[in-house]
């Protein structure tokens, strides 16, 4: 069985990131966009954990900086999702839509 190397993680992370970016750029629904942002964040988490593991394999020891940082990012993502959904609900109440194209009040 092939060892799962750092490269695999990075490829997976890049794929997730790309999916996320495509989701953010192409979908009109704000909920989907928020979900895509989650994908991007998780891609980053994957990278962090992967590089942490790689660093351990070279230097040994039990340094878990990457994993800890990933936990922080997850927390941050939760907070961001809460705020994002709050804004979304407020926005929906005003506009009765979740379509991002219609968020253009700050245009000059």
């Amino acid at each position: 069985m092939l060892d799962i190397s750092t490269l695999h993680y990075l490829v997976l992370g890049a794929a997730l990131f790309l999916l996320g970016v495509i989701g953010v750029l192409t979908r009109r629904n704000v909920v989907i966009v928020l979900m895509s942002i989650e994908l991007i964040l998780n891609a980053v988490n994957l990278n962090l954990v992967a590089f942490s593991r790689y660093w351990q394999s070279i230097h040994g020891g039990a340094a878990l900086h990457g994993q800890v940082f990933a936990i922080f990012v997850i927390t941050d993502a939760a907070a961001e999702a809460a705020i994002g959904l709050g804004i979304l609900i407020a926005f929906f109440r005003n506009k009765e839509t979740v379509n991002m194209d219609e968020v253009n009040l700050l245009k000059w």
Partner: protein
Amino acid sequence: MLFLTHIWLIPLLPATGAAIMFFFGRRLQKATVNAVCVGAVALAFIMACGAVLQYTSWTDTNHHQPYEKVLYTWLGTDTGHLNYVTHDGAQANFQADAGFLLDPLSSIWLLFVTGVGMLIHIYSTGYMAHEGGYYRFFGYLNLFMFSMLTLILANNYVLMFVGWEGVGLCSYLLIGFYFQRKSASDAANKAFIVNRIGDAGFILGMFFIAWLCGSLRYIDVNAFAHSGNYSADTLKYITAATLLLFVGACGKSAQLPLYIWLPDAMEGPTPVSALIHAATMVTAGVYMVARSNALFVLAPTSMKTVAIVGALTAIFAASIGLVQNDIKRVLAYSTVSQLGYMFLALGVGAFAAGVFHVFTHAFFKALLFLGAGSVIHAMSGEQDMRKMGALSHKIPITYRTMLIATLAIAGFPPFAGFFSKDEILWQTWTSEGGAYRILWGIGYITALMTAFYMFRLIYLTFWSPSRITSHEVEHHLHESPKSMTMPLVVLAVCSIFAGFLGWPHSLGGSDRFAHFLDPVFSRGEAHVLVEEGKVGQLAAGEKEEEHTSPTEYLLMLLSVGAAGLGWFIAGRSYAGAETGYVEPIEAVSPPLYKTLLNKYYVDEGYDYVFTGRRKLGNIRLGAMGLGEASSWFDSHVIDGAVNAAGWITRLTATISSWWDKWIIDGIGVNGPAILARMLSYPARLLEWGLVQWYALVMTAGLVGFVFYYVYH
């Protein structure tokens, strides 16, 4: 010394009352208005009594000096910014203090102004009870009290002038109190305008004094007058200064030829006539001349002018008063006539006698006016004596008090008027020079006329058969409320007893009144004068002591005889006056009666000369057109200058506005803004409002950075 050191509070109390009335009066109940305004004046009266009492004990230990209290300098400073050169080349500062001076002269005025003022305030609470503008009336009255007290208590001419103008203003406001009535507002204007003429004289006189003495404080002016080091030229200037001051006195105290405003001033409410146009304000001229006595005795010409004008006014006004039918107008002419007496006394140097007459006159004339007010009140507003009669039983208190006042003014002993009037006539008789005997004769005839028209008033109002035509009025006849009769009774008591203060030596008295005034007048009356180059001649006011007493008794008997004769003639003519009675003067000489009834056509004459308003058919009289000329000058020259100044201001304003609009705003303020706006056009193109496009740009940027770092 509490009252004396806080003497400045006396004018301030009514000022506070007036301020309260003007700011909050509209919202106050009548009872509150009464409490504030009457209370302020009553408090002022108490303080005045205290101050005068303390002054009398203070002055005994201070060489009979006047008491002076300076609060601060309100006009000019001593830093030399307003200095000028006096007639002898010295430098002087033009400056005036907010200072108060209490001496016997101001003490007397202070006492009767606050005392009579308080009684009239009380009377007004009854008289004005049903009138609109109650608080306004009392506000004006209090403001008047403030001005009058400032006038009296000032320690220099400038502050006196402030009070002088203040009483003029209040007189104007109160004459025009019923401003909906055209005649009232006209009368107010007339009073104000005629007073302006006198005020102009007063101002010029003040400038003369400032130029002569280098100061306007009474103490400095008196010191200058008593110093004796002046040339014949200086005496000419003093004559000019005193004559100008007398012009001011003529305006304020209604002397010929400026008396015309006073009879018309009767348009005001009756308490106002009593307070301002009988007892207090119109005596301001007498006060001012008496205050300047040290200067007047240096100017014999001025003294003679004062005496002659006074005597002529006395007989002139009295003769008009003989035939007037309006009860208040009779009293108005009587006031003018009595003021003439006072000036006659001042003019012959009998300052104390003049002041004494002011003092007694304040009581009985205020009483007469208040009584007349009470009669008018009872008659439901009727002022025409031809429609009165037989009121003595209907309004007994008014009747009795008015009778006392009439006896006093007619000069029956022992009422107040006897002592003061007799003193004036006696002093006139004993003045040096035969011409003064003529003045005495005029005064004597005036006394006869006074008795006649006063008893005419009493007969027509109280004693003759009733000529009341309206049953409604007759039914409504009633005695006035207590608030009105109480002041009448107090004033009646004063009218009886005030004269005793000046009980003459010849009747075994000590003339305490004149003695009290000695510190003010004695130096003036005994002053040695330089007249027409002759040094050492006695002043016109100097009395010859060797005159025998029998003459005095004879004159006394004569004046009592005149009073009795006046009563007798009035009784003969009016005791049985039915409706449509004939005036005795009309019976003797109709043209004379018509002339007197029309007041010698003086108003018409003034109209002709000054305003040119009269028309005879289609021909406009007023050929001299002084009024027209003044009006033209005012509207073309004065207003032209004003308009030119306005036009120049407008022109510069237009230029300034253009500069501001196009240069300051255009380039300085809007310029940077326009620049920023132009620069913002390309930046704005980036903000087209699609969130995902922004995200795409970010991503593209990210990709670009990555490529840059990877392939660099």
